[in-house]
């Protein structure tokens, strides 16, 4: 929850109304409101003392104002400590539930920005043994092998998203703008792939501490940053997935227009109530994920888009199918293939594909070209389904025939909500014609 002024005011108002004056009760009240008080709990005092070094000393994940990583304490390079931290908030947020993980990440990021350590239990617990380390997990994405305060540097260093290009990721990362520094520092995305062993399964009692043998960083490749701006991705997706339906609110402007035409002696229309159009996701969405070879470099973007759709659309409104234009669609991850589907009339189709735009030097048997997509795209349009293709490439790189057949929205940070609305609502048949 936000620590903005509105909620601090709420806390003060609630405390006054409820007659709360004791610091512990105030901390309980603040916790119930989702606020964190750094100095409210006596247990947090030791870490507060460590915070005298400055705010950044307690929040290693937060970048310094000049863009560099914050200074780290001695424990930042301690593999055992890093291994212990592997089971804390950033990873426990749950890989199985992307929506929840997203929310948890946001909460964690906000919490880490609230200032000194001691704001959560783990930080209060670890503060005495790590005077400079603070409470939040430092994250191996800011290694400091040459730091004077770290006598034992680990033999190897984890991949650093700041300097290392993500392997297997999207080429969009090269073309698009970089995310905000605090987002990168606050979201060590590559750590989300780490499989965390359950600590209470009794293995530790039998085998002893295995932390010394742990790999000090995750071996999973880093996950690229989201292709759309996280602050607007929800609105962009809604602009693409929503359809216009007649609502229940009267359209007064059209009503006045009808009345004026009637008074002016126009053709007498039978009385009817004009209703406003509203955008809704009631029709659901058919999400087609292109599993062709040319989309292999963008599989992370496809997974991201599917997770985003699952977060925003109602559970029964989303249908996800793997698609190969030469084979059809698969419901079982490629074991069997069915003919290309045509959704019910009016249901939007979101296509995660480059439409065969990428031409590899040695194309395989599943490679396609834009010309092979055109018949299916036209079939979808004729069936009354608005089709939008989320593509890694700019729309200008596609032939006019493709632009006329489908709305093209790049997987790019520069895409705005307005652009998405325009792309989704304009008639693609006019897209290639000069204005």
């Amino acid at each position: 929850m936000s620590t903005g002024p509105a909620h601090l005011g709420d806390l003060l108002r609630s405390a006054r109304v409820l007659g709360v004056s004791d610091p512990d009760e105030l901390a309980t009240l603040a916790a119930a409101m989702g606020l964190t008080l750094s100095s409210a709990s006596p247990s947090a005092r030791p870490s507060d003392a460590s915070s005298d070094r400055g705010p950044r000393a307690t929040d290693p994940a937060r970048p310094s104002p000049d863009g560099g990583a914050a200074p780290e304490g001695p424990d930042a390079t301690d593999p055992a400590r890093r291994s212990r931290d592997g089971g804390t908030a950033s990873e426990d947020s749950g890989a199985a539930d992307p929506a929840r993980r997203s929310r948890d990440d946001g909460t964690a990021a906000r919490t880490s920005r609230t200032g000194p350590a001691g704001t959560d239990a783990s930080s209060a617990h670890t503060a005495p043994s790590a005077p400079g380390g603070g409470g939040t997990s430092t994250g191996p994405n800011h290694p400091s092998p040459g730091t004077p305060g770290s006598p034992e540097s680990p033999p190897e260093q984890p991949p650093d998203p700041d300097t290392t290009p993500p392997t297997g990721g999207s080429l969009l990362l090269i073309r698009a703008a970089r995310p905000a520094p605090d987002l990168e520092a606050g979201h060590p995305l590559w750590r989300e792939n780490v499989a965390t062993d359950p600590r209470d399964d009794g293995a530790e009692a039998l085998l002893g501490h295995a932390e010394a043998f742990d790999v000090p960083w995750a071996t999973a490749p880093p996950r690229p940053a989201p292709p759309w701006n996280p602050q607007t991705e929800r609105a962009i997706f809604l602009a693409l997935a929503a359809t216009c339906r007649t609502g229940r609110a009267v359209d007064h402007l059209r009503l006045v227009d009808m009345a004026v035409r009637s008074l002016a002696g126009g053709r007498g229309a039978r009385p009817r109530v004009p209703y406003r159009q509203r955008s809704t996701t009631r029709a659901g969405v058919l999400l087609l994920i292109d599993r062709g070879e040319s989309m292999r470099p963008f599989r992370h973007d496809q997974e991201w888009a599917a997770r985003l759709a699952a977060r925003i659309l109602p559970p029964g409104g989303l249908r996800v199918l793997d698609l190969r234009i030469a084979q059809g669609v698969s419901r079982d991850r490629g074991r069997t293939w069915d003919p290309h589907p045509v959704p019910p009339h009016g249901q939007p189709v979101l296509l995660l594909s480059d439409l065969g735009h990428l031409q590899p030097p040695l194309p395989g048997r599943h490679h396609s070209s834009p010309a092979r997509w055109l018949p299916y795209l036209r079939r979808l349009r004729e069936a009354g389904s608005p089709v939008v293709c989320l593509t890694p490439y700019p729309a200008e790189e596609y032939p006019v025939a493709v632009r006329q057949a489908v709305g093209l929205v790049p997987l790019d940070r520069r895409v705005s909500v307005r652009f998405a609305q325009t792309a989704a609502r304009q008639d693609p048949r006019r897209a290639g014609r000069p204005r």
Partner: protein
Amino acid sequence: MIKLFDPAGESERPTEVGRIPVRDTARLDDQVYLFDDRTVLAVNVALASGRPLLVLGPPGSGKSALAPNVARLMRFRYYAEVVTARTEPHDLLWREEAFRQLNDATRGRLRHPGSRAYFRPGPLWKALDPAVDEGGVPALRDRPAVVLIDEIDKADPDVPDALLDPLNNLRFVGPDRRTVTAPEGVGAPLVVITSNQERELSAAFLRRCIQLQLEPPDREHLLEVARLHMGDDYDDALAVELAEMFENGSVATRPTASTAEFLDTLRACRQMGLTADSGEWRAVADLAMVRGSPDTSAYA
């Protein structure tokens, strides 16, 4: 076992309508609620801060029953709106009687366009202004209100976003361009919003709410709820057996089994005359306490 429905003996058996429980009177969901400390604190914070209380939790955990019980205990007026996929942003404020307006216009009896005759106040309007609530209890007219907005995650995302300002300021501009707010002397309403978290709410909306997450029930909680709801019909041995069955994995691993299903099983066993000694209660529990878990995979 008592059989309320028996096809074999249906023709010979005399009519026993009285034995079949009337559903509304047999349930005490609106009259009994087990408040834990965290829930009480969250309600207090929501009341004190004037913020909506967003109640999250699995289905059947008592999210929707919280609001009427708070209203009952505090003697507040109570209004509820169950949100569906067709709910529109203004439905919680008012609904326009367009056909009535059209009918009056064709008959030449059209009133002022902002006339209250053409607008039906929604629950939030009634909660703020008891004067527009024609069907309300007169004794509670000067009391604040509790508004339940149930399952807001079913609505399109523009619905919660459109409620940001009315919920934040507890006032809105009505169809007649006049500001609707709580009159002096009547306190601000407590707005309770529930969500099954089937889809994500916007950050702006979440920021304006006091969030209460109801956790899956443990054994003691289940037994206490059973005591409260069953009253004199509480069978301790059967409740303990059911709670153990719930807790020990045969049922609790299914995501949809919750307190409501536990109570359903107890009620069914009581109506059918089953006790912990009879082995048939397990079959009843398999039917009543285990609900089919929906396929959460989006792969069709």
